[in-house]
């Protein structure tokens, strides 16, 4: 079923956006700063991907779930969405964990005589 992978990625990205909006994790904390992090992050991993493809390490397999749209040889359109999801998931996680860690460290600091 072509497009299934892209659909899955989009659904996951929507989920990340909902979590972001609900808990103010990333874009809902500082939109331009988040956009800059995403842009640099996706570009960084895209270079990594293209290098891996150029070295022949990984490539598109015998599948039937991609749309068939390619950004470059063996770099499907879906890879862009995958990298967006990787970066967004990472920063949502960090945005969620960081305040908890800070609160605990500060509490531990206060308990110390």
């Amino acid at each position, binding site marked *: 079923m072509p497009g299934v992978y892209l659909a899955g990625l989009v659904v996951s990205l929507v989920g990340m956006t909902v979590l972001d909006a609900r808990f103010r994790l990333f874009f809902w904390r*500082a939109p331009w*700063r988040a956009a800059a*992090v995403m842009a640099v*992050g996706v570009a*960084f991993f895209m270079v990594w991907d293209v290098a891996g493809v150029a070295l022949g*390490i990984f490539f*598109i*397999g015998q*599948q039937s779930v991609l749309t068939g749209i390619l950004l470059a040889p063996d770099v499907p359109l879906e890879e862009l969405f995958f990298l967006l999801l990787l970066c967004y998931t990472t920063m949502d996680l960090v945005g969620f964990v*960081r305040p908890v860690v800070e609160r605990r460290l500060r509490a531990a600091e206060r308990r110390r005589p």
Partner: protein
Amino acid sequence: MSSTYALLALPFFAAVALVAVVAGVVAARRARARGRRPFVGRRAAVVTSVVAGVALLVMTMVFDNVIVTLRVVAYDPALIWGAKIGAIPVEDLAYSIAAVVLLPSLWVLFDRTGTRITDRDTAGATTARPAPDPTIPRPEDTP
């Protein structure tokens, strides 16, 4: 079987490490300018990356196993170590490790609110005072 895929990660890890060190220096300088000890912030950043990193690695193992099983991605067996987690080569995890260090570092470096901190700090003071001596901890740091 070879280390090609693993070696590919090295230059990218080096770039990530460099960005992380710069972010650490910048964050410490900002903390000192605000009269806070940079030590607490640094430890919070490291603990956050470890906790978020473990969660991200688990998610990556599940996700990558799905796409490798669906054969969205395939690997040249001659260019990977051969050590696998389910269907995925262990080298795949390098992306997540890089992400959880690089992206929060960029988040720190792209922080532009720091330039307005001094305004906010002096606004609360009853009289204008010179910039606080960064070596003297402020009262709120020593309860």
